[in-house]
């Protein structure tokens, strides 16, 4: 019976791990897309750099 509980716990943990890995793939795809978009924006539009204060540097 104890083995049973352990097996179940392991399966649940694996399922959680699987969900996590799937989300990670999504996240990575989104981050890649974000990178591309940023570089496109930077090429095509002069970025309003002056308007966006550097993080932490706001006064």
């Amino acid at each position, binding site marked *: 019976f104890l083995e049973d509980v352990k097996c179940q716990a392991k399966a649940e943990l694996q399922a959680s791990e699987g969900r996590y890995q799937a989300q*990670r793939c999504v*996240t990575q795809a989104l*981050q890649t897309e*974000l*990178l591309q978009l*940023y570089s496109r924006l930077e090429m095509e539009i002069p970025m309003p750099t002056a308007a*966006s*204060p*550097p*993080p*932490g540097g*706001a006064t």
Partner: protein
Amino acid sequence: MADDPQRNFRSAYYEKVGFRGVEEKKSLEILLKDNPLDVEKLSTFSQRFPLPSMYRIHVWKVLLGILPPHSDSHSLVTRYRAEQYEDVQAALIAMRFVNASTPPTELCLRMFQLENQQLPRRTELTQPDEEDEHFLAIAKAMEEIVDDPVDCYWLVRCFVNQFNNKFGDSIPHLPKSLEHFLSQEDSRLLAHLKASGCLSALPYSLWFRRCFAGCLPETSLQRVWDKVISGSCKILVFVAMEILLTYKIMLMGMNRPESVANFLTNLPQENTDAIVTKAIDLWHKYCGTPMHSV
């Protein structure tokens, strides 16, 4: 019950000779060998005694649930925590919220906001609000106490969450509580603070929202946080009261609320260990010492 002169004498003696610390350290080591760890006993220990600095971070992590009670899960869970940290940080970098030159405290804040789905839009980044400032102050102090950035983030995150969840309802009542205990310890000082209008100008946010982060140096602060993390917010009242009692003469000479507020926000940093020690004694005196045997 708290007035046990014999015990006080003994502990004062041991403290001088350094025995007390050794015995406490031994009993903590026994507790830490338990598997699973008895979180209840660990908090009782932490309520009663100062944590030896070599075990402090570990005990805090257990008390805050960053590490589970079962020691054989620690390496797995530590890996999860580290991955979570890296994932959130990587996203913030990808979104250009933070970069290599972002101060660690701000990184902590943004990560915390992202995990709570409260990240402001990057185009609408404004000045940190009051709540953010409290968070940043606590993060700054934690950063001084904890070297590892992953541990530091997790400790700040869980400290703030636990503090708000557990004590959120009590915090607004702490100023009244301070007034109550001060009336018993030193009614003259209280009367003066009231009459001069200084009582309402005391730095309550610094004391009761930031838990003295930015007010006490870290070596003293961590002994107060031992008590907060193990389950007491009342200790904050007694630290505040002991500060007032320690600087009574000075405060009695001040009549302008701004001067009092200014003095207390920029507290002299040399006397703070003694203040914390006396505050903990007062706290035990009024609230009792947790009696679980350790």
